[in-house]
């Protein structure tokens, strides 16, 4: 598995993703500067978290016009893997690779904390080592992670089993009490129709080593490593 991490101006989880893939997962990984039009030959592209272009205008709205994004869209259209984390998820939404949009958190405040996720779908390269219904403790850190889509889109996501993760309790109960940002249907991560693109607000790269408190996020990278 070869991977590339795209660096936009304002990305700030680029080195974190790089570090987990190289140091922890021992993957072959490289950075791609946003001005580069062509991607190196890789299986997986990561769009990392951060504040690309300062999140001015809307989160991810400007980054999606970066030259590198043209290649990322092509890479995805060819059925290869793209993982967008946090701001990366927002960029995927703005670029149309995934449906929906992000609103400000219901609390109107930035929130950084550990949350529990329930695995809803393990039929993807990102989640194949996970068990349906198992829960993972992974941090979130965002001001605009309140996922929104219209009724038709939500129905399609549900019917086609494209919701990868929902916010839940430690025991897997999904309810508004465990929804940290007001996302529709407690959605924390969704897959594209072809299941080769995953966007998620929680940061698995921050929960991949025991010294950081939890290493549940590592299972996502292990799934990918074996893909």
């Amino acid at each position: 598995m070869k991977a590339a991490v795209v660096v936009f101006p304002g990305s700030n989880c680029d080195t974190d993703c790089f570090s987990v893939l190289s140091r922890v997962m021992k993957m072959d990984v490289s950075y791609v500067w946003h001005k580069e039009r062509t991607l190196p030959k890789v299986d997986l592209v990561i769009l990392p978290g951060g504040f690309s272009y300062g999140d001015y205008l809307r989160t991810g709205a400007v980054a999606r016009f970066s030259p590198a994004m043209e290649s990322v869209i092509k890479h995805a259209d060819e059925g290869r893997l793209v993982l967008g984390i946090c701001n990366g998820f927002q960029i995927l939404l703005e670029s149309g690779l995934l449906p929906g949009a992000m609103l400000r958190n219901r609390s109107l405040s930035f929130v950084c904390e550990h949350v529990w996720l329930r695995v809803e779908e393990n039929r993807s390269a990102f989640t194949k080592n996970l068990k349906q219904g198992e829960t993972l403790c992974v941090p979130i850190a965002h001001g605009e992670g309140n996922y929104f889509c219209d009724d038709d889109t939500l129905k399609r996501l549900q019917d086609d089993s494209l919701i990868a993760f929902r916010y839940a309790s430690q025991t897997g109960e999904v309810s508004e009490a465990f929804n940290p940002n007001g996302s529709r249907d407690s959605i924390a991560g969704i897959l594209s129709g072809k299941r080769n693109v995953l966007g998620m607000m929680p940061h698995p790269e921050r929960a991949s080593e025991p010294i950081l408190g939890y290493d549940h996020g590592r299972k996502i990278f292990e799934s990918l490593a074996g893909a």
Partner: protein
Amino acid sequence: MTTEAQIKITPEMIASHGITEGEYQKITKILGREPNFTELGIFSVMWSEHCSYKNSKPILKTFPTEGPNLLVRAGEENAGIVDIGGGLAICFKIESHNHPSAIEPFQGAATGVGGILRDIFTMGSRPILLMNSLRFGKLDDAATQRLFRGVVAGISHYGNCIGVPTLGGEVYFDECYEGNPLVNAMALGIMRTDEIVKGKASGVGNPVYYVGAATGRDGLGGAAFASKELTEESHEDRPAVQVGDPFMEKLLMEACLELIKTDALVGMQDMGAAGLTCSTCETAARGSTGIEIDLEKVPKRESGMIPYEIMLSESQERMLIIARKGHERKVEEIFEKWDLHAVKIGEVKEGHLMRVKNGAEIVAEIPAKALADEGPVYVREEKRPAYLEDAQKLDLASIAVPNDFTAVLKKMLDHPTLASKAWVWKQYDHMVRTDTVFYPGHDAALIRIKDTQKGIAVSTDCNSLYCYLDPFEGGKIAVAESARNVVCSGAKPLAITNCLNFGNPMKPEIFWQFHQAVNGMIASCKALGTPVTGGNVSLYNESPAAAIYPTPTVGMVGLLEDIEKRVPSFFQNEGDLVFLAGDTFEEIGGTQYLMIQHGLKKGLPPRLDLEKEGRLHKFILGMAAEGHLSSCHDLSDGGLALALAESCFDPHAPKGVVIDQLQLAVRGAVREDAVYFGESQSRALLSVKPEFKEEVLKRACENGVPLFQIGCVTGSRICIGDRIQVDVQEALSIYQSAIPRRMAR
């Protein structure tokens, strides 16, 4: 058209610039003539307290600044640098942004974070941690809530965007900060010892570059503004508040850190207080050279700006770069990569003059060293304040011992100063960079350094009520307690940075407080072997009502050689034995208990014996290194009862505790409330696996540390004898909801 050169300098103009008659004479002597309007402005900002420390310098000079690991000492550069071995060094500093935050909390706090980060990456180090010390009036007041909400959002906005984790710090609420909140921001960076960058202009002919945001009229006279007491009118001074752009700073930071890896860089200096003026004359003064810049070339955001305004503007996110001649293209390329525009605005010159031109016209010409280093210095009058006489008196007999100690504990857990600050730090991205090992809520924040075994522990601390009641003892305790926090995590204290927040130094009582507090800090710094690497002084912290309590905030940094030997603050295992280290005396004066339960801010604060403190540190560090401690938590605000409750409050796995042998830990007659809530110093709460009991007791004895087994970690209640009994979940819920409940919109 009248040019600035033709503006006549009047006595009123001199006075409105805060320049005294004596200072003006000094200026004319340095110049050998009268200054013009631009030069008057330049002198006024450089010689303001904020930039020149003219009122505090003689006292600051007495801080110990020597240490075996210090690579750059206090005052030499923007921030001190400490060697941590393995070819690595850390660089850290704390700075105030009190007055801007009082006027516009969000932007004031945000730009405070931006400024301290620039101080760190200017030295060539990558910022890896932010902390802060915040103080507000009483939280039940709507105006305080607005300030508090704004400050926290501003810090969160800036730190989160730039991607440096903010690991909490401290938050106090007390009416003395009403209308004059304190916002002290601390940053710490890491670098290779061979990549230290100096803020120095050397090499005649080397080009001087301006990089970053364009210059506008924002923050005009900010440095002078920070040196004035807040009055009713200062709310009209709103245009003086700068607006921060963390995205711009992120680009600047990455570009500057890329630039230091090349051989194109000679020196670097951020434009903070007094902007272009300060960076230009300081780099020249440090390099013992001259410098010449042309204001026509400076990128401007607004039209019609006059040289005076350009020189004094405090627009944020700007840097001055001294490059190596012949390497201009390299510098420009790096900044272009980051979509920034590096503009050559001048060059290093022979001689010692700072020459400022506007096109062909010379608008200012001042000897750089005289301007930067030879400002006025005053030894102010001191007088022991009269209030102390009464404030230090405390008749214990008149203070009723409560009947229901459980109720007292609950009341204290609900006090915003003692309650959980999760409402604050959950708004900060405290995990970005994936190095955060101890989250906020621990005694000290702890981060690892990837690819090494090392960890860095940081704590910010100051009990300003102690400082109000006894500035010397308070200053001593501020240093000792922050060191104790770091020690409790298993790290060895290395050095401190400090932010000295006081009232108007022209008042002899205030200056006495300042001098006493500094003397107290020095005593602890010397005894504990932690020199001062730098910091900042913020004077004139007075609202219309009164001066703030003296608040010398300490930022303590410690090194953990082996991160696996870290010690958490929370109880870890059911069945662990609980020990209290240190002696408990009848010390109620200046405690949170006395204030919250009895409404009194009186008495002498607890006494600190530095020898005892040192022995405690040695003992804890030894036991941590052996891996014998399951947890360790220092005793401070709220005393033993608070420390026990906090130790139970692991957010991911709360524990219960039963304390049934407390009588053994108290020697002599001590009132019951002092046992639970007194704040005797040099104490810590340890939890230990039963198999280590004998070893721990033996080692305490060898180190001369009194150690008492008082109970064990068990169940789901906090039980202190039969006098305090509460469910952990109930106590935790009070503790966690105290601030959110008050801040509900």
